[in-house]
């Protein structure tokens, strides 16, 4: 993997920031930058073959329809799904989880048993389940974390002794980067008769995803966190579960027959895809997957892991810096920390004037903040275009910021 060549494919790095500095982009857990191939794929779609999918018998509609079929297949392969119909296009993780929570717990299907989420979840994988559980009058419980920020497996086992309908966990935390042993969590959930939902938001750009090895019932990710466009995401579900599930939404394209008294629905994958899809998003997502596959996810992972270790080492050398959570072998390249006497927002503002983008706040993970007894922290998150030099520069500026604010 040639870092220079990779970085040269991202137009945003070919300019200076408004303050005249190079952009050091370290907020990849929020959204990644986009390579030329993704930007071009979207533009080319609109320029050369724009039409609605699945409906027209004319070119370009026929071309678009065929592409959606092919891309679904490619995505199925990318995540290790057994069949293309197990890939449902959504508008992103939040969209997918809200629809999924309603499809599982809303409507006429009555589920029994508590709903569990882990204490490290992003609000998008927390609040929809909390609300769905409340709506279905089911207990909602949070799986506790250990001091180091990992899921407390004993507490999890203990919780599973109560009837459980569903467990929702992230593949990796967007704050600590700590990864979860999904196969094990899944096995335990299944032994208790519960469904397992995996939020792979943070995993998708950084480690191989294999839903069959994970043996999860559902998995979701957003394109924009994996070098792809905004407004597109994937929901994976096993065929057996998807085929029975209430439709995720109702409308054009998913209907078999509509009558005043009732409506019937089409087969998978259409059953869950109502309305005009984000077609340009789908095309852009394919380009993003192609980009990842071209670099090789193993190469990306090795590169990022090395930087991750460097970052932790450098940060640990700074007095007053406290990193949240302990490194695990399954981590994603995300490091969050507090700095004694310097508020995260001040730190982020200081670094921003040096062209360095880090995030400050609760990172949409207030339950995790409470676990660590803080309200906010600073976060540095890496991507394939990150470099050791950027990390050195960032930690240097961080030291200057500390001197300034203390």
């Amino acid at each position, binding site marked *: 993997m040639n870092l220079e060549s990779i970085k040269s494919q991202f137009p945003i790095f070919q300019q200076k920031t408004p303050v005249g500095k190079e952009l050091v982009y370290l907020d990849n857990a929020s959204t990644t930058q986009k390579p030329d191939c993704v930007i071009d794929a979207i533009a080319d779609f609109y320029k050369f073959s724009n039409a609605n999918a699945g409906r027209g018998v004319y070119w370009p509609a026929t071309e678009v329809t065929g592409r959606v079929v092919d891309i679904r297949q490619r995505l199925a392969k990318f995540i290790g799904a057994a069949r293309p119909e197990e890939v449902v296009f959504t508008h992103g993780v939040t969209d997918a989880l809200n629809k999924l929570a309603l499809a599982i717990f809303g409507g006429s299907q009555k589920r029994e048993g508590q709903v569990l989420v882990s204490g490290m979840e992003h609000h998008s994988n927390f609040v929809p389940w909390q609300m769905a559980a409340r709506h279905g009058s089911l207990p909602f419980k949070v799986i506790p974390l250990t001091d180091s920020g990992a899921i407390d497996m004993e507490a999890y086992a203990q919780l599973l002794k109560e009837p459980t309908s569903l467990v929702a966990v992230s593949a990796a935390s967007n704050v600590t980067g700590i990864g979860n042993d999904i196969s094990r969590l899944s096995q335990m959930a299944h032994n208790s008769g519960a469904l397992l939902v995996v939020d792979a938001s943070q995993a998708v750009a950084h480690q191989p995803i294999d839903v069959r090895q994970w043996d999860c019932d559902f998995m979701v990710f957003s394109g924009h966190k994996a070098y792809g466009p905004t407004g597109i995401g994937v929901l994976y579900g096993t065929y057996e579960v998807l085929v029975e599930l209430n439709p995720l939404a109702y409308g054009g394209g998913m209907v078999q027959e509509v009558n005043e008294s009732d409506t019937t629905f089409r087969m998978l994958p259409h059953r869950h895809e109502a309305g005009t899809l984000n077609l340009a998003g789908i095309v852009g997502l394919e380009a993003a997957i192609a980009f990842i596959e071209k670099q090789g996810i193993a190469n990306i992972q090795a590169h990022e892991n090395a930087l991750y270790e460097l970052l932790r080492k450098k940060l640990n050398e700074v007095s007053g810096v406290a990193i949240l959570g302990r490194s695990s072998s399954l981590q994603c390249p995300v490091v969050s920390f507090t700095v004694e006497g310097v*508020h995260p927002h001040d730190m982020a*503002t200081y670094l921003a004037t040096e062209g360095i983008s880090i995030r400050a706040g609760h990172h949409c993970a207030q339950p995790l903040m409470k676990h660590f007894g803080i309200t*906010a922290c600073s976060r540095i998150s890496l991507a394939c275009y990150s470099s050791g030099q950027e990390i050195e520069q960032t930690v240097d500026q961080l030291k200057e910021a500390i001197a300034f604010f203390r």
Partner: protein
Amino acid sequence: MNKALQSLYKEVILSRAKVPRYECKAPDLVPTVEAYNPLCGDKFYLYVSIEDGVFKELKFSGFGCSISKASTDVMCDALSHKTIQEGLLIIDTFLELIDDKSSVSPEQLTDSKELLAFAAARDFPERKTCANLGWEALRLHLQSL
């Protein structure tokens, strides 16, 4: 460390944030207002006593960045011994002072050095919710009286 930043974190802000004058640690009072920023989790509790329509005492506790802390501290100062009416005017002035969409220059709005220290927030609109945290909360409270 550039000029814009330097003027955002003027001496008055940094020193007020480090040694606030109106901060109290574990007061016996029940908070009058809670000022909460959902974007970062920062939260201040304001303790405001009003007598005969005049602010008698203002204090705060809680946590926040240097800008929100300093601005809350400065607010307590600016409002002390003012009438509610005067207080609301000062609040409006301050909110306009930090508003990057305002067409009036900060110097036209006030000559208070303490308030003017926050004018640089106009160049950092994303920090507006820090600068106005205590002020907005108190304004809402006063309007509801």
